[in-house]
């Protein structure tokens, strides 16, 4: 949420000197508000005004980075309460717990092997949370050393004993881990460690009031790369606290809470833990620490994250091209539709349910639906004919028949001319596909 032009104007020198390239200071202020100019262009702006303007235009939630190089994870920098207003910027980073009492190498090997591919997307697990469960500094350091050697994933170092943290950092500082956590007793030492090593620091308190006090103390020591843990561990309380932190930061510009957040699941049962995690992703958690490393539970969790963090203002497209449903062969039916994901998945689901192995061509319409794409000349006979040809359909099937959506029946003649294929007009709605296929192809 930036300032308005008038609010910015108040801080400008009002000399109308034109040095910035704009005719007046007001015009310059308007350009600044729209992000079309930079304050540096003004030769006379005071330091005080610069400070006021840059802090006022800073995002309500600070961007905090963990890790290095290509692996860096960005947290925070959010501006919204509801995703329908504008997209959430940075997907929740998921960290899996590795205790220093575990067989660290074996557990990391299993975690590293977790890669997920769904609908042409790769789902990543960004982090591991190395936990000083033993309470022993030497053991923790050994585990962290083993982890540094074993995996390229980012680390959350979970240990509230500053001396043990210092030991672990001597092995892992170069990886820029997130340090968890500063509390009311250890914060001076932890802040010093975080600053000396250039690491982000999690701040753990017993409740929101204590969190406010603690963050202010740490900021006063000079560290600003913070991640907040209000200390709640039950589902309902976490949702309440995370909502408060987000609301106060975004709506009230409450700087003390203007940082990313971290949440830990508390359920022992892995399936119950999954549901807690689903709620925490929905409710504003930046770093989510989970215990389960089971694929069958992480796949739905990461799919939910992928869903929630899509851009609501951009239609979601599937890969245009040929999709093979079942064991399709030379006699299988060929359907075509657009590459708008909702349309495509509806069609795919229904075609799949016909139990007749089939081909579906998703034509590149820029991710928009059948009728919109037709109206916009993005779903045309020429395009469909070209897709049939480019995808080599003539070699894949013996017949020359293609099914088009009923809503664009009008394309039939033109498409037959363009492609030389027989065009069968399918149902208007995907819900009619099963019945249609039964009549046509069974």
């Amino acid at each position, binding site marked *: 949420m930036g300032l308005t032009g008038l609010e910015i104007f108040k801080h400008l020198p009002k000399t109308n000197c034109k040095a910035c390239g704009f005719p007046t200071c007001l015009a310059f202020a308007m350009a600044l508000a729209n992000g079309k100019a930079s304050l540096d262009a003004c030769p006379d702006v005071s330091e005080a005004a610069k400070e006021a303007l840059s802090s006022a235009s800073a995002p309500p939630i600070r961007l905090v980075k963990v890790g290095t190089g290509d692996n860096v994870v960005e947290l925070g920098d959010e501006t919204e309460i509801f*995703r329908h207003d504008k997209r959430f910027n940075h997907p929740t980073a998921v960290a899996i717990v590795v205790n220093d009492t575990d067989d660290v190498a074996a557990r990391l090997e299993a975690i590293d092997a977790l890669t997920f591919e769904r609908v042409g997307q790769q789902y990543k697990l960004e982090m591991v949370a190395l936990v000083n469960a033993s309470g022993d500094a030497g053991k923790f350091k050994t585990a962290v050393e083993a982890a540094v050697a074993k995996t390229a994933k980012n680390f959350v170092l979970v240990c509230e004993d500053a001396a043990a943290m210092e030991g672990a950092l001597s092995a892992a500082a170069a990886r820029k881990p997130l340090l968890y956590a500063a509390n009311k007793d250890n914060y001076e030492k932890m802040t010093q460690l975080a600053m000396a090593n250039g690491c982000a620091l999690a701040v753990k308190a017993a409740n929101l009031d204590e969190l406010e006090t603690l963050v202010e103390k740490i900021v006063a020591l000079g560290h600003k790369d913070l991640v907040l843990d209000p200390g709640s561990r039950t589902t*309902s309380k976490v949702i309440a606290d995370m909502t408060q932190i987000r609301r106060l930061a975004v709506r009230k510009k409450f700087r003390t809470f203007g940082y990313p957040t971290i949440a830990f699941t508390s359920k022992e049962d892995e399936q119950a833990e999954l*549901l807690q995690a*689903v*709620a925490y992703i929905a409710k504003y958690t930046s770093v989510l620490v989970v215990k389960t490393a089971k694929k069958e539970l992480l796949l*739905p969790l990461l799919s939910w994250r992928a869903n929630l963090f899509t851009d609501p203002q951009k239609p979601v497209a599937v890969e245009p091209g040929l999709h093979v449903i079942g064991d399709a062969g030379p006699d299988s039916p060929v359907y075509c539709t657009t590459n708008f994901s*909702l349309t495509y*998945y509806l069609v795919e*689901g229904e075609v799949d349910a016909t139990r007749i192995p089939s081909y579906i061509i998703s034509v590149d319409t820029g991710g928009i639906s059948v009728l919109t794409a037709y109206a916009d000349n993005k779903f045309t006979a020429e395009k469909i004919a070209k897709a049939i040809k480019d995808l080599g359909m003539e070699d894949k099937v013996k017949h020359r028949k293609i099914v088009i959506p009923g809503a664009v029946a009008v394309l039939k003649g033109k498409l037959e001319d363009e492609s030389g294929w027989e065009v069968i007009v399918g149902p208007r709605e995907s*819900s009619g596909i099963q019945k249609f296929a039964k009549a046509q192809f069974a």
Partner: protein
Amino acid sequence: MAVEILKEKYRSQVREVVLGATSAEGGTRSHTIKVGGEAALPFLHFEGETPNRPVVAMEVWDIVPEDWPASLKAYFEDVYHDPAAWAKKCVEVYGADLIALRFKSADPDIKDSSAEDCIATLKKVLAAVGVPLIVYGCGKADKDNTIMGPLAEAAEGENLLLGVAEAENYKAVASAAMAYKHSIIAQSPIDINIAKQLNILISEMSTPLLDRIVIDPTIAALGYGLEYSYSIMERARFGALNGDRMLAMPMIGNVGNEVWVKKEASISAEEQPGWGDQAERSMAWEATTAMALLQAGMDILVMRHPRAVELIKEAIDDLMQDNSY
């Protein structure tokens, strides 16, 4: 120092809808269930009351569900030839709050059962369980219009939740609900304006019906556009709390129906090794979809897998815990 907690002040709240009717109220249910009534966004108990917990309905079909994956069918193998026994097991063994009875057999492409056949089944299920019932047709509007009236008449006074009224086809179901004292599901295709329009159309037929409407915003499964449903629901609920009376209804989601036809529910670990065990993954797919929808304000979840139901009921217990400051 104390943080100044930010509580939203809303102008309105969601209507409360009663499902079922006891003998004192003209029905035969052992108890009624109230849904809706929220005066805050989902589970933000610190700023307003959520008087009724979300509830879970389990789906019962009047035919054997051949297409369900074996891992799901296994739970019902002893009962799925008999809708009454099936419903009883869902309530007594699996803890269903409601039964959603789906008349699949009425589908002209399946058995084309008559209204009389469906009435006989409905009566058996009503006799077998005491919980309120949701009644769905086969999903084909032309046929459903011929069975919903007779079903509503046969169960007069039971206050069934009848599905579904759609913008193109709402009169038959709405009239049946009016005439025989039932509630209705108003279904709109992931579109908040159509949801609103449909409620206006129904209220033009009968104003009192407004207190007996449950909105089905049409939900998509996890991974298949769930976020669209999520955002439509958040907007609808926000609108309701801010005074939009035509959106201030409880919401229902057909979770099982969406999830169990998806690849993630059925494909084996051998075919898709990266996705893990099919039985647990499919269950988790349904539970995850349901949990996400709860965060956006879902009041009635229609589900299939007993373990997913158990997990969601436990999660609802957790979500309903007071979190006021």
